[in-house]
C-alpha cells in the first residue's frame, strides 16, 4: 500500500480528491474553497496600514490560515514519508528546451538550477522568484481569486465571472510561458 502511495498519483485520482475539498469545506463549516484570500488575511493581520481593503476582522477568516498551514505540513509529510527517489518525468520536448537554458536538474518539484538562494540575487532569479511572486499576489487579489477560488470553487457553482477569470489566467499563462519566459530564462 505504502509502495503504491509513493508512486506519482494519476490525474484521475488527484483531480477528484481536489474536487472533494469543495464539499468537505462547505460541510464542515460553510467555508468556500479559496487559497489566495489567505494572503489578504496576512496583510490584514500584519500591516493593515489604514487601507480600507485590509480593515476587517481577519480573525473571522482564521480558518483559512489553518488551512494553508495544513497545505504546508502536507507538503512536508508527502516529501518525507511518501516520496520515491526517481526524478520527475518531463516531456522530452520540454526537457530539450529547458536544457538550452541550463535547466537539467529534474530531481525536485521546483527547478533547482534557477530557484535557489544563490540565484535570488541574479537578475534571472530576481525575476522568476520575486517579480513572479509579486504578480501572483497582485493578480489573484485583483481577479478576486486564484485557481482554487475561481477555477474550482467558482466553476463548481456555475459562476460566469469565474469562467472569465479562469480563461484570463490561461491566456496570461500561455503568453508568458511561450512568448516571454524564454527570454527571461535566457538571461
Amino acid at each position: 500500500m505504502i509502495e503504491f502511495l509513493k508512486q506519482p498519483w494519476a490525474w484521475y485520482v488527484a483531480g477528484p480528491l481536489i474536487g472533494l475539498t469543495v464539499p468537505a469545506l462547505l460541510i464542515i463549516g460553510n467555508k468556500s474553497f479559496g487559497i489566495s484570500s489567505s494572503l489578504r488575511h496576512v496583510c490584514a493581520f500584519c500591516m493593515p496600514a489604514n487601507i480600507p481593503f485590509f480593515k476587517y476582522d481577519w480573525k473571522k477568516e482564521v480558518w483559512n490560515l489553518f488551512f494553508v498551514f495544513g497545505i504546508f505540513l502536507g507538503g512536508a509529510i508527502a516529501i518525507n514519508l511518501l516520496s520515491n527517489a526517481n526524478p520527475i518525468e518531463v516531456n522530452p520536448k520540454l526537457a530539450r528546451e529547458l536544457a538550452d537554458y541550463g535547466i537539467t536538474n529534474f530531481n525536485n518539484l521546483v527547478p533547482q538550477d534557477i530557484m535557489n538562494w544563490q540565484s535570488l540575487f541574479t537578475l534571472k532569479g530576481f525575476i522568476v522568484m520575486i517579480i513572479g511572486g509579486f504578480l501572483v499576489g497582485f493578480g489573484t487579489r485583483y481577479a478576486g481569486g486564484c485557481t482554487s477560488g475561481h477555477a474550482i470553487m467558482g466553476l463548481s457553482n456555475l459562476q460566469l465571472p469565474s469562467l472569465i477569470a479562469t480563461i484570463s489566467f490561461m491566456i496570461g499563462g500561455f503568453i508568458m510561458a511561450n512568448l516571454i519566459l524564454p527570454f527571461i530564462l535566457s538571461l
Partner: protein
Amino acid sequence: MQQNTDTEKDLQLRELDAMCVNESHLQHKWYHNLKYLVVGVLFGIVFVKAEVVSWFRIQEMFRLQSFHMYGIIGSAVVVGLISVFLIKKFNIKTIYGEPIKISPKTFNKGQIYGGLIFGFGWAITGACPGPLFAQIGTGATVIGITLLSAVAGTWVYGYLREKLPH
C-alpha cells in the same frame, strides 16, 4: 445595535472579495479550526504526490505538452459541480446544522486584468498560491521569498485598489 452595524459593515468589506466571506452566527472555540488544518494536510499531500506543485508540470500545461494538469483541474471541477449540485438539491446542512451558503461572484474587469497578471505570475513561478505553501513544505525554502513577495503584491493591490480600473 451599534455592534450589529459594525458586523454588517465588516461583512460587506469582506464581501468585496466574495471568496473570503464565511459568516457563521455560531461561535466556536479556536480548536474547531483544526479540522481545516486536517483538510489542508490531505490537500497538500495530494498536491505534492500528483505533482500539481511542480514547476515542470505547469510549463508542460502552458505548452500543451501534457494532459496531466488539464485532467486534474477538469476532473476536480466535475466533482465540485456534482457536489454543489447535490448539496443544493438535497439541502444538505453543515455538521453544525446550518444551511450551506455560497456567495455568488459579481463580474468586474478585475477578473480580466487581474486574471492576466496572475496568469503571467503562474507561468513564471510555476505555482498558484496553494502550491507555494506546499513547495515550502517540501523543503524549497527559497520559495518563502516568493510567498512574501506574493503577500507584498496583495498589499500593493489593496493600496492601489481605488485607482485601478474595475
